[in-house]
């Protein structure tokens, strides 16, 4: 129909641009899984043959499992702390009239844009000055800082999405602040909390720069990968490991978004 308005008409150049954008973004990443199934030590075309060999090899390596355990521990601790802190920050940002709220929120979100290397070096200097030796605990501290903005940004729409009168109603019906939180606020923001846990776990699990500066003797998985890059023979196994991380990360983030899917709809309905 040539008479439809330009607002509804499909835009060919834009569609082309969108397709190109996605290709440039994801095709390089897709080479990892591709070569992880290739029956050759060298990453080069043409592909020689299909194999699970690298995945099987991976399973037999004790250091991989140790690094995985470390990463999971750090990830769980980080996600719990970041989500816990983020929940109260999100509540304060959406509920209370705080003087200088705008700059304050910007300040909290700063780790998103400040280069990790700066935070990493700063924390390293601080911790060594305080005489704290590097360990998985110090990595967790660094990761909480990196993850806090993600947690807050995930949960703010949840808090914005519900009528403040609902909390007032709970107070009116005789519950104090503590019980109102557990009986009303928490159950209502719970999908956001779950999404935040999944997202911050993923961010922590994949994080490299902070870990690079703050890891002691126990490496996290990204640290292990980085250490193995020196050995060309290990490279296909690393590709296999990276592919697994890629898939798991994608699933976790997607799951988190899906759980929290109605938050924005609820917020915009108000």
């Amino acid at each position, binding site marked *: 129909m040539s008479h439809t308005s330009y607002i509804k008409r499909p835009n060919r150049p834009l569609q082309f641009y969108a397709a190109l954008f996605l290709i440039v973004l994801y095709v390089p990443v897709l080479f990892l899984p591709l070569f992880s199934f290739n029956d050759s030590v060298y990453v080069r075309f043409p592909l020689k043959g299909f194999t699970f060999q690298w995945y099987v090899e991976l399973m037999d390596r004790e250091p991989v499992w140790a690094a995985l355990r470390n990463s999971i521990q750090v990830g769980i601790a980080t996600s719990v702390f970041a989500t816990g802190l983020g929940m109260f920050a999100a509540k304060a940002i959406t509920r209370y009239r705080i003087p200088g709220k705008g700059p304050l929120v910007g300040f909290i979100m700063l780790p998103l844009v400040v280069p990790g290397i700066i935070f990493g070096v700063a924390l390293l200097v601080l911790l060594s000055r305080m005489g704290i030796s590097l360990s998985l605990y110090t990595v967790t501290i660094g990761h909480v800082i990196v993850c806090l903005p993600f947690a807050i940004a995930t949960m703010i729409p949840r808090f914005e999405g519900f*009528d403040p*009168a609902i909390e007032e*109603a709970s107070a*009116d019906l*005789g*519950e104090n602040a503590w019980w109102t939180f557990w009986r*009303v606020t928490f159950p209502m923001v719970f999908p956001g909390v779950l999404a935040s846990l999944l997202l911050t776990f993923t961010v922590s699990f994949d994080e490299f720069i902070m870990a690079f500066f703050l890891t002691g003797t126990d490496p996290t998985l990204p640290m292990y990968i980085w250490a193995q890059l020196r050995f060309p023979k290990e490279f296909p196994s690393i590709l296999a490991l990276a592919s697994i991380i890629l898939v798991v990360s994608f699933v976790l983030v997607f799951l988190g978004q899906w759980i929290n899917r109605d938050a924005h709809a609820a917020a915009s309905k108000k």
Partner: protein
Amino acid sequence: MTQNDAFISIRNVNKFFGKFQAIADVSIDIQHGEFFSLLGSSGCGKTTLLRMLAGFESPTSGEIYIDGQPMSDVPPHHRPVNMVFQSYAIFPHLNVRDNIAYGLRKQKLARAKRYEMVDEMLELIKLPDYGDRKANELSGGQRQRIALARSLILRPKVLLLDEPLGALDKQLREQMQLELRALQKTVGITFVFVTHDQEEALTLSDRIAVMAQGRDLQVDTPTRLYENPVNRDVASFIGTMNFFDGTVSAINDGIAKVDAVGLGEVRAGNVPSGLRPGQSVCLAVRPEKLTVSENAPEAGSNARGLLENAAYLGERSHYYVRVDGVSQPVAVSAQNRQRADGKAEDKRPVWLSWDENAFVVLEDG
């Protein structure tokens, strides 16, 4: 203790939000078991006053007493009042039964006892068998009833209602008005009801406080508010009112003789105590207290005018009559007791007439 035996006593309460004064020196006494309404247009401070009764706002100065106790240091969750919110604030993650039972946690009842009380409430609000429904499966009217039940199950001394019928369509609203009034009679709890709908306030209330710009203009029964408003603001907020300027010529037995512009000598009631002969005053008369006729009335007070406009509304007609010396056309409302022939709308000279007690004097001359 308060100086009087009022159940709720609002004493010289002021409330500022920054520099904006939301409540200006309001003092109101509400009796036990009364259906009391706060009536005013939006921004008049009625909701702020209600939220101060609930404890969600605190007065900048002044004190609120409920059942003889000063409330300034009592937080919302310890006050003997419950509120029905404008949005109803039904807990969306709970079903109807758990919504209604929400406030019972502290009473540490057995589950069976708790459910029995909930079932009683569901019976009272005429929604039996709704206990297992989810909150998002309810209509507006049902939510409103659940919000009522959730408050009433705690047997509060006072129930606060913030425009609870505002979100309902006209038919449902009228039905809920009747039910609300009947419910209040059944449970015998003091109701404080906020509304901007004057008809709703007149229908439901024992007494009404008319509010504007943070002040209580007049606190009175619906009849007295309508028939004897103290000033122009109250008179024009509730129903329609015609105003005339005049000069007092004599006062005796609470009736003032006033020389009114365009009407001649008029007798008016509701005379303020300070009024003296010679003072200029404002007179008011309701449209239905006036009669329009084509021929000069045989007896009674009357005045000449020109029929300017007429509106036929079925059960009644509205006439607008131009009277010399009066800036606004005089509104007259008449029952259509005869079948109309469609000729009433024509422009022509007419007579206005009225009964002895039709006019009242307003305070702010």
